């Protein structure tokens, strides 16, 4: 039997090392894998590049990684929500690659789908498109965007089965299905783990073959 369950959060994030690139799911509080995030904090790898929509908001999310000095660079669309990030950024202690949100997810998808890059109209003619290759197609300017991959993706699911099939809860779905395609090692923290066959094949959002480890979420802080 394929069984991707691991005993706990520590095992779930084993292998995240200094210098790694880590994708972290979530938009606002929705879908943040809080148990996995806490376990990485405890493990303490350094010089991480973090790919997420935000740079965190408060304690209990990736703001903690920033506070603990684990993060070298953040690739995100909206870091201003994190006072910790803002302070470190102003001190020059963390790098930022700012990416429009749709471009961020599309670059992850591009990597996960085995494509080499894509032309997007978003950011053409703006500072975020500066320095990028521009191509005019049917009279409209597009910029060339490149794939974005990671060593680990940490995501939160609603249901998981031992084969790694996942469903999500409401708007907690956000980045998780795409991150699950784009990282070398995909770890999902699930609200509920059900038996194989417990998820309707029509309802699976992330097929199990994309997922490497499953861990049961603890009670929410």
């Amino acid at each position, binding site marked *: 039997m394929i069984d991707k369950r691991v005993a706990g959060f520590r095992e779930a994030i084993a292998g995240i090392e200094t210098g790694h690139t880590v994708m972290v799911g979530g*938009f*606002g*509080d*929705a*879908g943040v894998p809080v148990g996995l995030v806490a376990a990485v904090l405890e493990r303490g790898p350094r010089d991480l590049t973090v790919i997420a*929509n935000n740079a965190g908001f408060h304690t209990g999310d990736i703001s903690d990684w920033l506070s603990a000095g684990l993060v070298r660079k953040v690739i995100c*669309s*909206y*870091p*201003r*929500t994190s006072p910790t*990030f*803002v302070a470190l*950024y*102003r001190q020059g202690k963390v790098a*930022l690659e*700012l*990416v*429009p*949100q*749709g*471009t961020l*997810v*599309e670059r992850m*998808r591009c990597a996960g789908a085995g494509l080499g890059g894509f032309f*997007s*109209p*978003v*950011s*053409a*003619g*703006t*500072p*975020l498109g500066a320095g990028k290759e521009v191509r005019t197609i049917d009279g409209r300017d597009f910029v060339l965007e490149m794939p974005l991959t990671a060593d680990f993706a940490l995501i939160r699911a609603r249901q998981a089965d031992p084969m790694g099939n996942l469903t*999500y*809860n*409401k*708007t*907690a*779905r*956000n*980045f*998780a*299905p*795409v991150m699950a395609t784009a990282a070398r090692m995909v770890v999902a923290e699930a609200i509920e783990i059900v038996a194989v066959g417990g998820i309707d094949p029509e309802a699976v*959002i992330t097929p199990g073959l994309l997922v490497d480890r499953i861990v049961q979420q603890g009670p*929410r802080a």
Partner: protein
Amino acid sequence: MTPHSRDDIARRVARALPHGAVVNLGIGLPGLVSRYVEPAQDIVLHSENGIINFAALPDGGAADHDSIDASKRPVTVLPGGSYLDVALSFSLMRGGHLDVAVLGAFEVSARGDLANWWTGKPDDVPGVGGAMDLACGAKSIWVMMEHTTRDGLPKLVDHCSYPLTAPAVVDRIFTDLAVLDVTPEGLCVRECVPGLEPAELQARTATRLIFCDDHRIDAPRER
């Protein structure tokens, strides 16, 4: 002359939405619009974090961390709504599948350039979120803002001084003083608040206004 209140502007925008339109309301001022949409308008709200056809959580409703809109406000899905991942959500935006995006702005230029994401000042940490994606994709881009800054400086200009969100995308602008369309000839005034003379409106605007033939001095109709 009394400028419109923020709620007045929201009411005016709501009234302008076509029946059955799929609409994204940007963060900030545009969020007010949802209060003034009539049920009979059958407006479908989209939020870029992955929800379609939702409403603000009713008072006393149990908030759910996992059911929010792009402003991180608790929302509830309506019958006929759906959840989606952000890849599809932004495909809908960029792909022209939304009818209207209503966005706030720092500045709008005469040719419809939009600046609404960053002041460009060194101490201002930039954050873009979905602003550029929205501005590039919806079929109609409407801006909703005060006509001037708090310091009385014009926000409608010949050329934006702030970093652009997207060039030449805005179709219509709703302010506390007027409703204006972006046309090939420049900004065309469609409506003004009662008692505001064209010269007064022009004085508060840093690009030459066109007062079209069909321009009427028209207060937003109250419901």
